[in-house]
């Protein structure tokens, strides 16, 4: 579900188990006018996705309950969530550099540690893209 009204702030869901990082991202994006909600685990993230409209998901891969990829798969297979852009928010892993089929499920990758400006640019660019 993309932003419908240009004047309405975009809602971004951050699924991240590290509280300090989730708080940091929320601080930065909130400061830029986005509505930010957070989930400390995959199940919680999916629950929130089911409850409210979200324009973008920032997803950590290493979650304490379910695999980040399973969150992607669930979203892509669930009609109202299938079009929500996902930005992978993860520590760079060498095996992810190789060809991995899951890459097609996400719209971009933000590597941790991240630069504030890079995060904002990526979020803005992704939200500006037409729906897939």
């Amino acid at each position, binding site marked *: 579900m993309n932003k419908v009204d240009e004047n309405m702030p975009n809602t971004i869901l951050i699924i991240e188990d*590290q509280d*300090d*990082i989730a*708080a*940091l991202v929320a*601080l*930065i994006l909130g400061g830029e006018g986005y509505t930010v909600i957070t989930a400390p685990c995959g199940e919680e993230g999916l629950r929130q996705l089911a409850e409210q409209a979200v324009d973008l998901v920032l997803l950590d891969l*290493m979650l*304490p309950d379910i*695999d980040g990829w399973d969150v992607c798969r669930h979203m892509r297979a669930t009609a109202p969530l299938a079009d929500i852009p996902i930005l992978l928010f993860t*520590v*760079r*892993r*060498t*095996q992810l550099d190789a060809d991995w089929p899951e890459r097609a499920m996400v719209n971009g990758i933000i590597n*941790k*540690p*991240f630069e*504030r400006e890079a995060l904002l640019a990526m979020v803005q660019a992704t939200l500006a893209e037409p729906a897939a």
Partner: protein
Amino acid sequence: MSTHHYTATHAEDDGPGLSLVTEVLESISDGVCLLNPEWRITYVNRCAAAYLGLAPADLIGKHLWDSYPQLIGTEIEQYLRATMATRQPRDFDMPALFNDRWQHVQLSPSPEGMVVCFRDITEQKTMAQALEASERRYRELLTHAPSAIYEIDFRSKRFITVNDTMCRLTGYTRDELLAMNPFELLDDDGRKVFQDRISAWLAGQSPDANVEYNVRAKDGHIIYAALDVTFTVDEHGQPLSTTVVGHDITQRRKIDEALRESEERYRRVVENTTAIILRVNLQGIITFANERALEFFSYTNDELIGRHAVGSIVPPRETSGRDLAVMVDQIRANPDSFHANANENMRKNGERVWIEWTNSGIYDAEGHLKEFLSVGIDATQRRWAEEALRESEAKFRLLTDMISAAIVIVQDGMIQYANPFLLQRGGYREAEVIGQPFQRVIHPDYHAMLAERYRRRLRGEPVPEHDEVEGVTSSGEHGGWYDFHSTVISYQGRPAVLITAHDITERKRMEQALLEADHAKDEFLAVLSHELQTPLTSMLGWSAEALRVGTPEMMATAMPIVHRNALRQKRLITDLLDFSRLIHHKMHLIPVPLDLGEQATEAVENIRQLAVERQLHLSYEPTSVPLPILTDPARMQQCIGNLLNNSLKFTQEGGSITVRCRRDGDHAILTVEDTGRGIPPEVLPAIFDVFRQVDRDERAGGLGLGLAVTRGIIELHDGSIRAESAGQGRGSTFTITLPLTPVDAGESTVYNNK
């Protein structure tokens, strides 16, 4: 016929002349009778009267036809009347009228009537008849005899007579033969032999009967003939003619030749064969031995013939212990039941040899067993070869029985042999695999690969020297890994495939372990990176944000976060360094005598605040007995602290953590028991292996290096650590066992892990 000639002049003399005539007439052996024209008998001499059976006086004056009415109507009456009427003399032979004798009758007219003379010709007549019969028989014989019979005139060199058989045998007609030179029927040799026989005969020698000639028939084929020849000569002793009786002996000749050839063959076989040929009579005595037999057994004919087989060429007992005397008795009783028989034999010098015999009985015309014939082949070499083969086979078996590789011989796709290793490895009984398709022992996952390998081999394409395949057990489970190598051999005279398959299960397991270890290391590095980057992300992000905003509030918010994450990273780095020291044997302990109970108390107190914060029930059950140990206190606190921190991390609010100390013999025991999420059984054995247990669940508090480091340190104390868990969600118990310090041990010792 002209022996006596009476004339009418004699009969006409009368007076004294008559008396002389009468005397003569009375003395001769011919009958004389005078008849007058009225057919009265006017004179009979004594011989005639004797013939007629009456005295002359009773005959004189009698009327012929009245006295001998039996003559009326016969040829004799006609002759008599004709001569009387015509006056012409006549003579004829007359069968016996009055007895069984023949008469020659001569009728001569005379002035007084007629003179009848008759003479007994019975002898003559019989001989003539016999001659005639003989002649007739001869001609019949000549014509129809199964032998060719012919006469040759030497002067004209022509046949005089030839019989039908001669024509039939030679294929010529009688006329053709009669126009031929008889000697042209013979070849040069035959003519010479014939000439020699004539010469021999003329020289008074009796020629050989039945000399054989080759006679050429009209169509060119040779008739073998035995010619029996008799000669006639002229007054000068020169041969006039010859009578030849020829017998066609072609058939006999052929039989003779066949017989001769057969005998020749037999002789050749017996003399030249490499087979040993013996004849032994019913008493077991050798009656015949061919050259080969004599040579083979090193006997002369005289030495061997007449000896009993047992003791000469047959040892009484075989090396194997078999009683050969009994065996020979059995052969003698029934040679045919020992038709094929192999046994040990003996040369003159006692050397033992093996012979394969073929025995058969020789029976007489009545079917009684006379002797037995034994034909033998020296099988010593073969027996040796067989024994060598058996030995070789035994060696092969021994080798294949002992070798720790699977060995299989496959012929026509079926297993002919499988060594014990394979059987044992797959849990097979021999009967389960022998005669079964080769696939029986290969895991189905590899059937297609092996089939392709086989097809390629059949097509002559190269096949890999080695392939890795998995076996299958008798129950169908994976039966270990094999390095599969196959080669074509000859097995029992036919091509087969010898498969040697080395058990590489251990290697495969290690490869797999290595692969897993590599994977674990990769995972470890990934997690390490994650664990290092995660606090770094917070530190960098929060500090940058604080600096950018620059407000005291922002600083106050950010600084504790930065500090907390810095501590986390420090702890991580400490664990990494400790771990690195342990695996590189660089960790040094400085142990001092301490009490384990006191150490436990200290560690428990260090985390009490945290437990309270997390609402966990932390209890410590000390022991009253002293637990003196030698330990590096900082390291011991690290170990107990790691266990307690794990329990804190994995136990939910409301759960409990219990620490106990006790003594068990020479050992001090410390246990940390929690009601936390427990450890799955499959993870439990690897819980202390750093590269193994890296998993999402275990990672929750970091790299999971803590337990690996703890174990390393405890082992440096000559102690041990173990983990127990009833399973996921059912808590865990970690137990440290350390040696108690001996009572007199007061000195400090430096432990290190070199």
